[in-house]
């Protein structure tokens, strides 16, 4: 599983990345967490605002810091 955290690098983006990594560790899942700050890649994924999160190429949230429960659901889902 690959989880991308999309965002240029503001505090909300860092918070999102931290939460994703925490959930991955807590769940013990085999997932690669990648922070994407390249605007071209973010734009290619069709993201209107950041932070955003994509799991295996599917965008799960846009423009907000997700709750840990949401992240867990995406990973389990």
């Amino acid at each position, binding site marked *: 599983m690959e989880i991308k955290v*999309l*965002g*240029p*690098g*503001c*505090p*909300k*983006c860092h918070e999102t990345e931290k939460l994703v990594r925490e959930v991955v560790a807590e769940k013990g899942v085999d997932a690669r967490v990648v922070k994407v700050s390249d*605007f071209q890649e*973010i*734009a290619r*994924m*069709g*993201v*209107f*605002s*950041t*932070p*955003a999160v*994509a799991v295996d*190429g*599917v*965008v*799960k*949230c*846009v*423009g*907000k810091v997700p709750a840990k429960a949401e992240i867990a659901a995406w990973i389990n889902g």
Partner: protein
Amino acid sequence: MTATCCSKEKDIMILACSGGSNVGQLTNQAAVELTREGYGKMFCLAGIGGGLSGFVKSAQDTPQVMVLDGCQVGCAKAILEREGIPLKHHVIVTDLGIEKVKDRRLDMDPADVAKVMNAGKSAMDAGAQA
């Protein structure tokens, strides 16, 4: 398309049908001008129509979405409805008294562009008061 981070206010997403008639092209030009003046950001309706997850999710998660359709066919509206995206701020150009002319000139009067832009802003204001 730009991705802003941690902006204090959420950007208004602007979706234009950009159809193949004068009124469709008016929606496109109005969206371009609204983006240039900083009122909101034009976004890719085609991406939503194509069911691409990032585009669909962006439209679902953006609180303020302005939808500009050229005519009563309502292609932009139909795309959003198919994806389950609520339609809150919708403008139909032909309802503004601008006639649809299906010729190959696709002429646009700058006054009509301004009229569509103002109608879009009014739709957003009306939605905010609702």
